[in-house]
């Protein structure tokens, strides 16, 4: 099965372009910093109170461009490589100040002005006609791309500074305001469908959730809002069905709270299969904060992808002579081991109480099947994995019996 090989690798062309961009932009930032610091009374410290003049603005622009590329590298899992390329900029107070100024500028000049148009477009998307709808989609994608830029720049600044960038209060408030308004209406972007998934799928799986405006519900079909209309009609015609709907909603909420409680209180609590598998995948990191800290604290010489690879590997969870079940943090993976073969037209199925059976999708590799952990079935606390082989059928309980 090749467990030692990383299952997910950054897009080679994207990574190469990103690293080349870091080199080019870092050189520009070094030049700009040297020039600005040589000017009398124009140190790049934000506390100096000096207004942004032309030179300072240009340096800030260069830094914003650099952070875009560095953030991209981090999201590709190549933070060590990016760190190596930044070299002397990593220890520079002036660079850190400039980084914070660059993020603030992006928020002020690119993100905030996009907000009102974005919200109008989001409201109109559902009811738009052909042609107008596709145009609206492009406008929404473009506006949300500004939020990408801010997130990437912030991540770049974290790597550069080794800590959270010190944004001014106005910038933090503007960002929070943007996010609050967007979060409340994000469901209206569901008609974008798989475009949303594609907008975050370039990043390593563990980073996609950080692009939450694309990631949240990106597995839902683009017809999801039309399906809501169907549900409304069902409830209208069959009021008796409301109880079933409310039961389903309640189950989702209970599972969410159980998962949260499990996270808060540690082991021994009821958790969703998704949480269980993710804990198995990365047992030492339970929050994005810890994850981020881990990236920041790593130091010393490393190969270009050492750290990255450690996060992309599959973690085997269950193994027999016939099959191996593993996870990569995004999927539950079933590999049928040679010489055994899967039964034709019978992919592995996950059966969980109160959920329709979920059939695995065939992976590009032979005899490999995958279930996306984002599927609602992984909200269940337990399930049976049914694998039909040419010689037998295996039923494996999840969570796995650790004694097996």
């Amino acid at each position, binding site marked *: 099965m090749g467990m030692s090989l990383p299952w997910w690798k950054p897009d080679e062309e994207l990574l190469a372009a990103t690293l080349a961009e870091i080199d080019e932009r870092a050189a520009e930032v070094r030049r700009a910093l040297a020039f600005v610091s040589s000017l009398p009374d124009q140190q790049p410290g934000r506390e100096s109170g000096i207004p942004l003049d032309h030179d300072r603005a240009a340096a800030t622009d260069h830094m914003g461009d650099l952070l875009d590329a560095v953030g991209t590298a981090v999201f590709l899992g190549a933070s060590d490589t990016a760190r190596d390329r930044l070299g002397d900029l990593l220890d520079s107070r002036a660079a850190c100040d400039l980084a914070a100024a660059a993020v603030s500028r992006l928020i002020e000049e690119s993100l905030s002005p996009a907000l009102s148009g974005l919200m109008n477009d989001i409201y109109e998307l559902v009811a738009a006609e052909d042609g107008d709808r596709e*145009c609206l989609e492009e406008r929404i994608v473009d506006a949300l791309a500004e939020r990408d830029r801010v997130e990437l720049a912030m991540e770049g600044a974290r790597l550069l500074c080794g800590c959270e960038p010190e944004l001014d209060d106005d910038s933090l408030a503007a960002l929070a305001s943007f996010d609050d308004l967007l979060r409340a209406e994000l469901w209206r972007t569901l008609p974008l469908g798989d475009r949303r998934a*594609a907008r975050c799928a370039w990043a390593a799986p563990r980073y996609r959730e950080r692009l939450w405006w694309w990631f949240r519900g990106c597995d839902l079909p683009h017809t999801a809002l039309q399906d809501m209309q169907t549900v409304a009609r069902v409830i209208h015609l069959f009021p008796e069905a409301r109880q079933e709907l409310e039961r389903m909603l309640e189950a989702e909420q209970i599972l969410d709270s159980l998962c949260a409680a499990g996270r808060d209180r540690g082991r021994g609590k009821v958790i969703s299969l998704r949480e269980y598998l993710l804990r198995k995948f990365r047992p030492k990191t339970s929050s994005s904060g810890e994850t981020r800290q881990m990236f920041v604290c790593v130091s010393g010489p490393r190969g270009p992808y050492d750290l990255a690879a450690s996060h992309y590997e599959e973690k085997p969870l269950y193994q027999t002579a016939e099959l191996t079940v593993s996870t990569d943090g995004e999927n539950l993976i079933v590999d049928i081991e040679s010489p055994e073969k899967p039964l034709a037209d019978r992919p592995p199925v996950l059966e969980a109480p109160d959920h329709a059976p979920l059939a695995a999708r065939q992976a590009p590799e032979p005899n490999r099947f995958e279930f996306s952990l984002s599927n609602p079935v992984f909200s269940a606390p337990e399930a049976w994995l049914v694998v039909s082989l040419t010689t037998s059928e295996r039923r494996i309980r999840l969570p796995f019996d650790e004694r097996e």
Partner: protein
Amino acid sequence: MARRDLVLGEGGRLLESLSSGLDKKTLSELRVAGFVNTRVAHLHLFKHVVRLCDLPPEELYASRDPEKWSEIIPNPPLAPDLRARRRKARESLAAIDSCGLRVGRPEGDLPCRTCSSADAQGAVDEAFSDLMASYLEAGRQAFEWAKRNVSERLPFLLAFRQNGQPGVRLKFVDNRKITGAGLLSRHGGEVLLLTCYRKDPGRPLSLLKLSLSRERAGHRNEGTLVPIQGC
């Protein structure tokens, strides 16, 4: 300028070609035919060129056009002074009874998007035909440049599908940093623009490429990328 059939029909060479990706010959035959519909065309014209609507307040009342049209269109048929340009446009629009952009309408309103008046659309097309032709020509040139220069390493053009629909979408950027998006129709490989403008003239071209590279990698991972063969 009306929307064409966006569904690729059976048996067409284009469809055959797209089943495995866009080959170089097919790509070379693609042409920008116009905007996807009149409303979208007018929306872009009055936002990006005339700068009369659909802008944040600070831009709506600014007297300086951030776009340097002379870099995009040789001898643009535009008043260089933004206030004069708007005034002239308002004068032309005043003669079009059913146009929502006429004087009296609150500035910043977005009537083009909901306009259903064929009379108004026709009259606006006629009154602003020079400007629209120049604008479209800039879009055409940008697309042609992107077509000629796209490669695996230089993603100036991106093709993908969305939501399992048969139509193909295109995104492109040229060396002047004009970015655009369009739909591929079946009619002789026409591209119908969804948007086209220079969003951020100050941003390096390489970063716009990086942005398209991210998008391409995402579509590739999602299986929605339409590969461009032989580049």
